[in-house]
């Protein structure tokens, strides 16, 4: 057991590895909650509903054919779900992997005068979220 550093993270979208252009990945995974409080309770009661989640990925812009803009903007334009793979501890047998289809919901670019061009994309999970250990 030990703490894990983020620099080994691998992310692939539509089977394209964009890890080399990414410096942060934020996953938010949750469930809806439904109020089922009835008389006689001093505190509210809830039931779990549907699950939902998003990823926010960001990094430094690269102008290559597999760069983030070249990969993500066409996917956003197409509007169809694509497979997304997130390996928080990197690639290796027994290491965790999450698999889910996503829609590319937004793509943002910033061009600061004193820094590299940066990008951020929001991905909406759609359908089952599968969590496995890599074979």
């Amino acid at each position: 057991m030990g703490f894990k550093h983020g620099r080994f993270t691998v992310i692939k979208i539509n089977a394209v590895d964009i890890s080399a252009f990414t410096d942060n990945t934020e996953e938010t995974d949750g469930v809806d909650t439904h109020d089922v409080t009835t008389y006689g309770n001093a505190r509210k009661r809830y039931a779990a509903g549907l699950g939902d989640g998003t990823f926010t990925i960001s990094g430094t812009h690269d102008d290559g054919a597999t760069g983030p803009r070249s990969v993500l903007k066409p996917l956003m334009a197409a509007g169809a779900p694509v497979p997304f793979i997130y390996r928080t501890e990197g690639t290796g047998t027994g290491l965790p992997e999450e698999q889910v289809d996503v829609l590319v919901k937004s793509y943002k670019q910033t061009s600061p005068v004193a820094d590299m061009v940066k990008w951020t994309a929001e991905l909406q999970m759609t359908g089952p979220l599968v969590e496995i250990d890599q074979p």
Partner: protein
Amino acid sequence: MNVVDVMDEIGRKLRQIDGLNVADWDAEDVSVPAALVPLPDRIDYDKTYGRGSDGITIEFMIVIGLGNKRAASKQAAEFAAPSGPRSVREKVGAAPNNRYEYCDDVQVQSCEFDVVRIAGTDYLGCVFTAMIAGNGRG
């Protein structure tokens, strides 16, 4: 990125400046005006996942003889100019028409002036700071 390859490439771009000698980085005797490109101040590893990119901060300098201070200042101003035939920023800074082979981007961020001593002799030094970005895989 290989640090020495990047240093050498910066040296080759400085050699394009008319009348500027590029000395070896550890030279003890220079023929002024001379450029010295030392090892970088700092390498920042892992700017992106999977060894995608690293960053390098480097200070290199142009040294000018101090025999005539006014003439030395005028020369320094030519090297420090943002553009022009002897502009270090223009010759070294990456641009669409000035690409690098051994890194992706070089930005000459600043120039400071100081008196530097080499082998017991004082020179007027123009110290340039550049930020370099490139592939982290070699």
